[in-house]
């Protein structure tokens, strides 16, 4: 083409980023990678191989050896052996290592970006300008956290050996999200990249040595799903951090049930992109480009559900279709390309199949381009004229496919946005701050973007609610995922009661009822259980709860949702009033604790006073546990708001029944949760004896519900109930295991313990921020501003 022809056309350049250096690097390693264990690469000639391909043209990048069981074990052992020294190292020592990793990545930005694009198919502009800089930022940011760990987290210690498994959509960025906080807080780890995209992790492994990462602190193993499953379920692992699909997350939840492992799951999503009539529509259109066509739509938090106010729907669709025409799709290494290739042929087929099948059930399909040459280039797609029951509006597609639905009012927008199993992220588009800030807390999601989408930073927590998983990555809130309290001391169980007599002559026969929806109700099944005093005589009868009682209690708690919207001051007033009313019954309680629990008068007094103090503590916290404003590098504020979990089921510990019951209920309701508590079996009457005080303390009906019965059975019912948002559980190992396994149904957030893990009387163990953190989930709200 002559210069004059170019002058007439004014085309962009097809400027290909050179992949020479990256290809040379792959060649220099023989295009074969083994495992990175204890600071060394290990290769086995007989290993199974997985080919890592360039999805845009099918070229082989490298063969990856699948780690065998022995290598997995070796990696985990290496992490275990490296743990004591790494934990003992001071924060400054760890900070230097993280800082060195950040610097090294920065020095090799270009080759890393090219490797990422070759391996994943994403446009070089995205790997170079978004993925890799964010990964580097993550290491810098967490170098800082390591430095100040002793000061900021003095009551916590590292968890131990962490298994980390990531998907293929942001290979190095996910590596950074996982590895940086884990090692900053003194954990050691075994990391598994996705089998489709292991290359940048292999490059990173080579940097570890230069950065001075001690041998065994970071181990990287390769393999597909089965390798990941073995790693997650391995007994040598203390914690599993997984990012990936909801179905695999669910499998990991089940596989690790009963293993006493901490879990972080970042799973799928079908995030809403809500455009109100007063939005800047041109801004919203570009927001959609950032939202659903970023990374080919292979983003867990992609705004794949466009909800648009009816009166502007046509206008927005027209603008959007026009914009879709200027999106450029093609060779990912081309610097003038917006959308690259899907990660694999499998993924292409999956997306195509979902769209083909979906469209058969109705809907209007718009694709900017219909030409589809070889390669896995799926065109940007918009589907309109469907409703929320349509499969394409419910299923996560994980491709560049946007579905659009209209709404009429703000409340309908919220309802539609929340009409999903998922709850990862959402964006709200409106130039009216009143509206935006009103809607933000109402959408069930871990991240809310106002007038933007897909903004990320190391200083801000990321993670979901519902089936989008639990736990946060990034920000101070993300660090607790890699920490545990230092001060817990196990306590011994008290001796069993010798039952003396079946009847009591002293008093009128009492049968304590359940407390459900603000009323005392009889058990549905009509069965009762006897409870005994310390001396073996009959104390009272309590109900034996069943599935229907659970249903009624959860239903009452669900209805009491207004409690979660009350302000902290009002909740504090009510909780203080509860303490006041309880204090009036001091004599009665001291007598009861002596009789039922066999305490001395002094012990009873201590427990009672400690209980009152504990209620006061959480009344105090009710209007003080108030989140943070994160310092992300943009013009705007990111608010990290602790939000109530919602309906919280609590399986109470057996011992110290008064203070332990209060230690569970008080922080939960202080933070705005509604509680369904299953009382201690042995001391079932104690929790129920609180009912009269609860009734007289202005606590709204349904906020606290108390049942008694077989803990294991009731816990399982609660774990399987989809309206229960979270469970706190202190129980025997089998019950804990069952709760963990059953909760996989809807991936509830769990805080579970083998009963006897702490002394409830000790305020350092039985009270405080750990409880408040577990009674809340942090929502990050990004609000850019400027006029």
């Amino acid at each position, binding site marked *: 083409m002559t*210069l004059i022809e170019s*002058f007439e056309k004014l085309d962009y350049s097809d*400027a290909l980023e*050179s992949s020479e250096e990256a290809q040379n690097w792959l060649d220099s390693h023989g295009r074969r990678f083994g495992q990175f264990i204890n600071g060394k690469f290990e290769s086995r000639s007989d290993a199974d191989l997985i080919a890592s391909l360039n999805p845009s043209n099918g070229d082989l990048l490298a063969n990856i050896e699948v780690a065998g069981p022995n290598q997995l074990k070796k990696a985990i052992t290496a992490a275990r052996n490296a743990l004591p020294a790494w934990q003992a190292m001071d924060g400054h020592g760890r900070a230097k290592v993280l800082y060195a990793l950040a610097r090294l990545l920065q020095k090799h930005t270009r080759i890393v970006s090219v490797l990422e694009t070759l391996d994943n198919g994403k446009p070089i502009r995205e790997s170079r300008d978004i993925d890799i800089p964010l990964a580097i930022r993550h290491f810098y940011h967490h170098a800082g956290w390591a430095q100040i760990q002793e000061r900021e987290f003095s009551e916590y210690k590292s968890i131990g050996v962490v298994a980390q498994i990531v998907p293929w959509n942001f290979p190095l960025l996910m590596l950074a999200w996982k590895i940086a906080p884990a090692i900053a807080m003194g954990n050691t780890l075994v990391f598994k990249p996705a089998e489709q995209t292991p290359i940048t992790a292999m490059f990173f492994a080579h940097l570890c040595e230069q950065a001075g990462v001690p041998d065994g602190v970071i181990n990287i193993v390769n393999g597909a799903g089965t390798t990941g499953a073995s790693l997650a379920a391995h007994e040598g692992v203390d914690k599993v951090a997984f990012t990936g699909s909801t179905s695999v997350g669910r499998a990991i939840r089940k596989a690790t049930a009963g293993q006493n492992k901490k879990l972080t799951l970042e799973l799928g999503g079908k995030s809403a992109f809500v455009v109100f009539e007063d939005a800047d529509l041109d*801004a919203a259109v*570009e927001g959609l480009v950032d939202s659903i066509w970023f990374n080919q739509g292979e983003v867990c938090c992609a705004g794949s559900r466009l909800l648009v106010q009816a009166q502007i729907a046509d206008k927005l669709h027209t603008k959007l279709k026009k914009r879709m025409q200027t999106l450029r799709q*093609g060779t990912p290494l081309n610097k003038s390309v917006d959308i690259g290739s899907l990660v694999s042929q499998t993924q292409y087929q999956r997306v195509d199949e979902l769209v083909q099948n979906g469209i058969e059930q109705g809907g209007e399909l718009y694709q900017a*381009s219909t030409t589809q040459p070889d390669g896995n280039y799926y065109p940007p797609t918009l589907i309109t004229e469907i409703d929320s029951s349509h499969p394409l509006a419910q299923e996560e597609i994980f491709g560049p496919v946007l579905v659009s639905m209209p709404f009429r009012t703000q409340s309908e927008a919220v309802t539609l946005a929340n009409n999903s199993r998922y709850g990862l992220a959402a964006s709200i588009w409106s130039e009216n701050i009143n509206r935006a800030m009103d809607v933000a807390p109402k959408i069930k999601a871990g991240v809310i973007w106002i007038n933007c989408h897909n903004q990320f930073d190391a200083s801000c927590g990321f993670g979901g609610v519902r089936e989008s998983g639990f736990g946060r990555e990034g920000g101070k809130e993300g660090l607790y995922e890699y920490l545990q309290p230092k001060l817990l001391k196990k306590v011994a169980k008290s001796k069993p009661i010798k039952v003396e007599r079946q009847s009591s002559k002293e008093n009128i026969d009492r049968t304590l009822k359940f407390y459900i929806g603000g009323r005392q109700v009889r058990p549905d099944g009509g069965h009762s259980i006897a409870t005994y005093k310390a001396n073996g005589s009959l104390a009272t009868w309590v109900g034996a709860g069943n599935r229907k009682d659970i249903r009624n209690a959860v239903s009452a708690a669900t209805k009491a949702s207004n409690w979660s919207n009350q302000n902290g001051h009002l909740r504090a007033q009510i909780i203080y009033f509860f303490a006041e009313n309880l204090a009036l019954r001091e004599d009665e309680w001291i007598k009861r604790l002596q009789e039922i629990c066999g305490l001395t008068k002094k012990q009873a007094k201590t427990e009672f006073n400690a209980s009152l103090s504990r209620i006061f503590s959480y009344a105090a916290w009710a209007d003080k546990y108030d989140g943070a404003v994160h310092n992300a590098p943009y013009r705007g504020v990111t608010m990290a708001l602790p939000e109530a979990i919602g309906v919280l089921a609590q399986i109470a510990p057996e011992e110290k029944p008064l203070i332990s019951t209060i230690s569970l209920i008080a922080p939960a309701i202080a933070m705005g949760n509604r509680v369904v508590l299953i009382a201690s079996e042995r001391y079932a009457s104690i929790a129920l004896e609180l009912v009269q005080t609860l009734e007289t303390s202005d606590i709204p009906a349904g906020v606290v519900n108390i049942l008694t019965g077989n803990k294991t059975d009731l816990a399982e019912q609660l774990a399987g109930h989809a309206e229960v948002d979270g469970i706190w559980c202190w129980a025997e190992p089998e019950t804990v295991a069952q709760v963990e396994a059953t909760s996989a149904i809807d991936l509830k957030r769990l805080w579970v313990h083998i009963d006897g893990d702490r002394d409830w009387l000790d305020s350092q163990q039985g009270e405080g921020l750990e409880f408040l953190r577990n009674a809340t989930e942090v929502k990050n709200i990004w609000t850019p501003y400027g006029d």
Partner: protein
Amino acid sequence: MNTNKLNTKSSVIDKELTEHDKKIISYPKMNLVDSSDADSKIKRNPGIDFNIDRISNITVNRSAVERRCASYAVRRSIKKQQQAAWLLKAISLIDLTTLSGDDTESRVKRLCGKSRRPLSPQLIKSLDIESLNLSVAAVCVYHDMLKTTYQALKDSKVKLAAVSTGFPAGLSPLPLRLQEIEYSLASGADEIDIVISRRHVLEGKWRELYEEVKAFRDSCGEAHMKTILATGELGNLSNIAKASQVCMMAGADFIKTSTGKEPVNATLPVSLVMTRMIRSYYEKTGYSIGFKAAGGISDSKTALTYMTMIKEELGRRWLEPDLFRFGASSLLGDIERQLDHFASGYYSASYRHPLT
């Protein structure tokens, strides 16, 4: 082939696309204007009735505008021959401007000479572009310099543009401002760059603004009217968007960012907002309005970013002198050096090129 990189930070070796790599499935064209033929005549905007509803709901989100602006330079690559072609095009889009209190005949003559021969004959020869017969789009001066300019530009295709209506503040009496237009037309001006009364925008007097601009347009007659918004003095992006709409309703042929005399002149965010308003006006009325970015665009890289924005938002057709201009004085010198580098492989010194 010689390499020519404006972005010195990027040290990568670009290679031409091999057939194997050429899996590009969509390079669609924007169909904003039916014909993509650059020569097709556009219909002149006659203006439409004032309608407050068209502007009352406009709000512009600044952060979103800035995010979009950050993408043009990094998401679209213009290198080597393409870059030379775009820069040649940029020359043809320049309103070569001098608007100083110390302007004299000799300086204006020099400017006119440069406007007719923006590149040296040797460079034109080595680029093999004689047939383009390249010149800048217009020379832009104060009224008093028009006669000199007219003489100097006789027999050239360079247009004669005069700033008018009490430029730059626009605060002289309205009859005088209207008369100034007539004076300039009588002196041979093809294009009149008028300034709006910023106070109408800041006080929300949109109908007054409309009437003012309409009066200017009536005075302009056949001459093309560029409406200078002085965006640096309008307070915020929403005001800029509204003022753009009002001026187009009143019959502007072009909307222009700045006089060059405000504390902040053309910026990418402001330009994007105005460009989007041009698009929405086109979608509603079918009239294509031109855009002129003036002040502060002094190097080739910035010029390419603006042109990328125009191509992305409005399409290829807008990258012609009848729909897009740069108001600049030093930009040409930088483009010349870049083209020289493209032709020779080495960077030139400014003293080796004739003064602007």
